[in-house]
């Protein structure tokens, strides 16, 4: 009765450290909202009693009101903190989130997220000249370094920053700017040859 369910939600998020997003708890949210309705209804009844003289009820009414406020606060904290986590995922994964994460989001969260993505895209298009500026790129400072890479599969022509094109053929080795290779390394096209 004393906002236990709402607290459970907050505790669950608190335990899920590191920005992890646990499944949305629709059932617990509904139970907490029902608890609030019950508290409110009982208070409504007791308020009219209190008005007609039962002043001994005042303490109980106050107590229920505190429970209601605590419920409200915990539920909103739960929902808001989840939004912050979802927001961070946009920057980590890009605009399409992995399925495992999407499964953990409620329909309304998905909607919030798609609006957030849209606002962000509009903003990024409006800065940085004609093509806009993708702020989810260039997260780390650039390194003007070259590294030795080996090509793991045929990838075709690849333009490096000085405008030259090289042919990325399976098993060929190249000395390339690191910042140009990072994505291809992630995609498994190139591997970093450690000397």
């Amino acid at each position, binding site marked *: 009765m004393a906002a236990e369910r709402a607290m459970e939600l907050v505790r669950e998020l608190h335990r899920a450290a590191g920005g992890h997003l646990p499944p949305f708890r629709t059932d617990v949210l509904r139970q907490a909202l029902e608890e609030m309705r019950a508290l*409110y209804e009982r208070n409504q009844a007791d*308020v009219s009693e209190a008005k007609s003289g039962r002043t001994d009820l005042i303490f109980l009414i106050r107590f229920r*009101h505190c429970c209601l*406020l605590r419920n409200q606060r915990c539920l909103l904290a739960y929902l808001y903190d989840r939004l912050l986590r979802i927001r961070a995922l946009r920057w980590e994964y890009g605009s399409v989130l992995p399925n495992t994460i999407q499964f953990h989001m409620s329909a309304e969260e998905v909607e919030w997220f798609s609006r957030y993505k849209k606002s962000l895209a509009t903003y990024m298009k409006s800065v940085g000249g004609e093509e806009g500026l993708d702020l989810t790129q260039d997260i*780390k400072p650039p390194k003007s*370094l070259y590294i030795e890479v080996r090509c793991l599969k045929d990838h075709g022509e690849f333009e490096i920053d000085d405008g030259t094109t090289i042919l990325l053929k399976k098993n060929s080795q190249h000395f390339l700017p690191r910042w140009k290779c990072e994505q291809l390394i992630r995609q498994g096209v190139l591997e970093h040859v450690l000397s």
Partner: protein
Amino acid sequence: MEPAEVEFLAEKELVTIAAQFSLDRIHLIGGDLGPFNPGLPVEVPVWLAINLKQRQKCRLIPPEWMDVGKLEEIRDQERKEDTFTPMPSPYYMELTKLLLNYASDNIPRADEIRTLVKDTWDTRMAKLRLSADSFVRQQEVHAKVDNLTLMEINTTRTFLTQALDHMYKLRTNLQPGESSHSQDF
């Protein structure tokens, strides 16, 4: 701030190289570089020096202070004084790391230099821990931190400022937010 970001800033410092190619002046947005003539010394930012060095297009001429004799003096001075002595470069630590990593063949007695800079750094970090501790204990509200370099500030920043924030919050007993109106009563 990430250490990589401090390193990024350090890479803007100028160093002298002897180019092994010829090239006219380059008009970069941040200013002009060059001209480059084989064997002639020319100043370039560290990011470019490292890049050219990696592509074997230049020889690095170490900064004047990157010298065993000079660094021994600096280390001894740092050990003698209670305060922080001025460093030869605001990025002495990062430059040592970068230049020794990518151009150690152009720096005489590279290993000794690495050790000397590390010793100086350790002495300074020990002083920094002491002063941070006394700052917090004495409940100071202002400190002069002259001669501290960005990397040094950066290593204590998060810990120190968060500790101060917490202590401030504990002392100033924040008022709880207003609650909403009680039920019609």
